[in-house]
C-alpha cells in the first residue's frame, strides 16, 4: 500500500443515518483517500484516447472532419490542454493583477 492508497478515512459525524447517504459518503471518502490513483487514472484515460485517435488512420474509419487540422492525432486533446492552460495563465498573470481589488474596500 503506497502513501496515496491509504485506508479510507472514517466518516465524520454526519448525523445522517440514511443508508444511501452513508453509501455515497463512503464512495467519496474512498475516492478522496486515493488522489494519486485518480491522477494516474486520468493519465491512462488520456493515453487511451490518444491511442483510439490512431484508429482514424485505418482505412474506412472517417472523422468526418470539417477542417484539415481535425485529422491530426490528438488534435482535440492538445487544443483542450492548451486552451485551459491559456485560460489560467492569462487569468493569473494578466487579468488578476489588473482587476483585483481589496474585498472590503473596493471601489
Amino acid at each position, binding site marked *: 500500500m503506497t502513501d496515496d492508497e491509504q485506508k479510507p478515512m472514517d*466518516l*465524520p*459525524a*454526519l*448525523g*445522517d443515518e440514511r443508508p*444511501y*447517504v452513508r453509501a*455515497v*459518503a463512503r*464512495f*467519496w*471518502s474512498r475516492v*478522496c483517500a486515493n488522489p494519486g490513483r485518480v*491522477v494516474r487514472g*486520468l*493519465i491512462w*484515460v*488520456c493515453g487511451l*484516447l*490518444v491511442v*483510439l*485517435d490512431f484508429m*482514424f488512420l485505418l482505412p474506412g*474509419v*472517417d*472523422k*468526418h472532419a*470539417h*477542417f484539415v487540422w*481535425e485529422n491530426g492525432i*490528438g*488534435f*482535440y*486533446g*492538445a*487544443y*483542450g*490542454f492548451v*486552451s*485551459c*492552460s491559456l*485560460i*489560467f495563465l*492569462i*487569468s*493569473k498573470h*494578466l*487579468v*488578476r493583477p489588473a*482587476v*483585483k*481589488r*481589496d*474585498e472590503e474596500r*473596493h*471601489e
Partner: protein
Amino acid sequence: MNSLPLPPGLILIVGALLIPFLRGWAKSAYVVILPAIGFLNVICLTSSFAAGAEEEVLRWTFQFLDFELVFGRIDKFSLLFGHIFSLLAVAAFIFILHTRDNLEYVSGMVYAGSALGVVFAGDLVSLFVFWEMLTLCAVGCALSRRTSEARGAAFRYLVFHVAGGVVLMAGIIVHIVQTGSAEVAEMDLGSPGAWLIFLGFGVNCAWPLLHTWLPDAYSKAGIGGVVFMATFTTKTAVYTLARTFPGEEKLVWIGVAMVVLPLFWAMIENDLRKTLSYCLINQVGFMVVGVGIGSDLALNGTGAHAYCHILYKALLFMAIGAVMYRTGKSKATDLGGLYRSMPLTCLLCCIGAAASSFPFFGSFVAKSMIVSAAAESHHTAAWLALLFGAAGVFHLVGLKIPYFAFFSRDSGIRVKEAPTNMLIAMGLIAVLCFTIALPVVNFPWAGYRYLYGMLPFELEQAYEPYTFAHINAQLLLLAFAALAFVLSLLAGRYPAEVRAENLDVDFLYRRGGRVILDFLDRWLNAINAVTRRAVIDGGIARISRLCAAGPTWFAALAMRSVWEVQRLDAETIASKEAALYRRAEEGAVPIGVSAMLAAVMMAVALML
C-alpha cells in the same frame, strides 16, 4: 382537462396572486401544483398543436387600440422553450419549498409566467409588457435574500433593465410607426427601430459591456431566486433574438466575445456563484453564435442547448445554493471538504458539472450542433472560439466548482446534508440531464431523439451526435482539459483562490459616471452661478427697480419740462419733484399727472 390548454403564462401569473393568502402545507402544495398544472397545460398545447397540420397557430388574440395582441403564437420553437420553462418552474419550486417566503414565491411564479408570456407572445406590445414583468420579478428574486448587498444588486439590476426596457420600447414604437406591424417577426438591421430592439434584447442577453448586472445580481440573489433568474432572463432574450434576428452576422461575433472573455473572470473569481454566472454568459454566447449563424442546424442547436443548459445550470446553482443554505458561505476560500457532510449534494453537483459537456449528458447532444453549424458555415474563427469555450467551461464548471466546493482542503465545516426537498429537486433535474441525452430511440419521454423531436426545424440530414469520432473528440478535449487542471494544481501553478473583489467593466460605468458627475458639477454649476449673478442678482433686480421707479421717473421728466415752461425756480422744481416721488411711493399721484403720463405713453406707442 377539457378546459386545458389555457394561455401558458396566465395560469402562473393569475395563480400567483393567491399565494400570500395561503398558509402552511396548503401554501407548499399550491406552489408545486400550480407550475405542475402549467407544465401539463404546455403538454396539452403540444398535443393539440401536433394534432394539426399547420406550422404555426395563433391563439388567444385580442384587439387592443390599433393592435392585435397575440398571447398564443404556437409553433415548435415556442413549445420547446415553453416546455423547459414550465418544467424547470416545477423543480425550482420544489427546491424552495421549505422557505414559505411570499416574496420569493410570488416573484418566482410571476417570473415563470412572464417568461412563458414572452415565449408565446405573437406581437411586440404584449411581448414588451411581459418583458418588463420579467425585470420586476427578477428584482423580487434578488431582494428575497434580504441583505444590503442584495438590495444594492437589485437596484443596479433594475437600473440596467429599465434602461434596456426603455431602449426596447423606443425601438418597438419606431418599428411599428415605420412598418405598421407589431408582429414578432424577422427583422434586419436596416432601420433605427430594429437597431433599438436589437440592443434592448442584448441587455437581457448579457452582451459584452452590457453584462455586468448578471454576475452582480446572480451572486447576491436569494438561494432559490437565482435559479429563476438563471433560467428565464437570458434564455428569453436568446429566444427573442432567434425569432427576430436569425442569421444576423454581428451576433456571431458578439457571441464569440461572450464565449471567450467571461472565462478569464470566472477563473479568478472566488465566489462560486459568480464563477457560475460568468460561465452562464459563456454558454449563452454559444446560443448567440447559433442565432447569428442562423442555419436550421444552428437554430436547432440553439434551442437544444438552451433546453439542456437550463437544466444543468439550474442544478449547479441549486447545489451551490444548498451549500449556502447549510453553511452560509459561497466562496471557495471558505469552503472545501464538504463531500463528507453533503455527499448527495456533491454527487448531484458532479452530475450537473458532467452535464455541461460530457457524452451521455445533455449538452453533449446539444452544444455540438452549434459547433458543427459553425464549421459547416465556414466560420473558422468562431469554431475555434467555441472549442476554446467548451474546454474552458468544462475546466471551470466541471472541475473548479465541484473541486473547491466539495473537495480541495478540508475547511472543517460539518453540516447536515441538504433538506429533502432540495435533494428531490436536484435529483429530478439530474435525472433529466441524463435521460434527455440517452442514445436510445423510440423511448417515451427520454433520449436525445425525444429532444430532437421537439426542435423547430426538420433537417435534410439528421444530426447524429453519437458517432465514434464525435465521442472520441469530445472525450479528448475534456480529458486533456482535466489534465491541465490537475497538473497545474499539482505544480502549484493554478491561480490561488484569494479573498478579493475583481473589477469588471462596471468599473468603467462607475468611474466614468463619477468623472461625468464631476465635470457637470464643475462646469454646469459654474455656468449656473454666473447666470445667477448676471440674471437673477443683476438683470432681474434692475428690471424690477426700473418697473417700480420707471413711471415716476418718466413723469418727473415730463413734469420738469412743464415746470420749466412755467419759469419756476430750481428750488421749487426740486421740492415739486420730491413731492411727486413721495406721492408715487404712496400711490397718490394727481389724476392730471397720471392722465398726461398715459397720453405720453400712448403717443410713444403710436410712434413705435
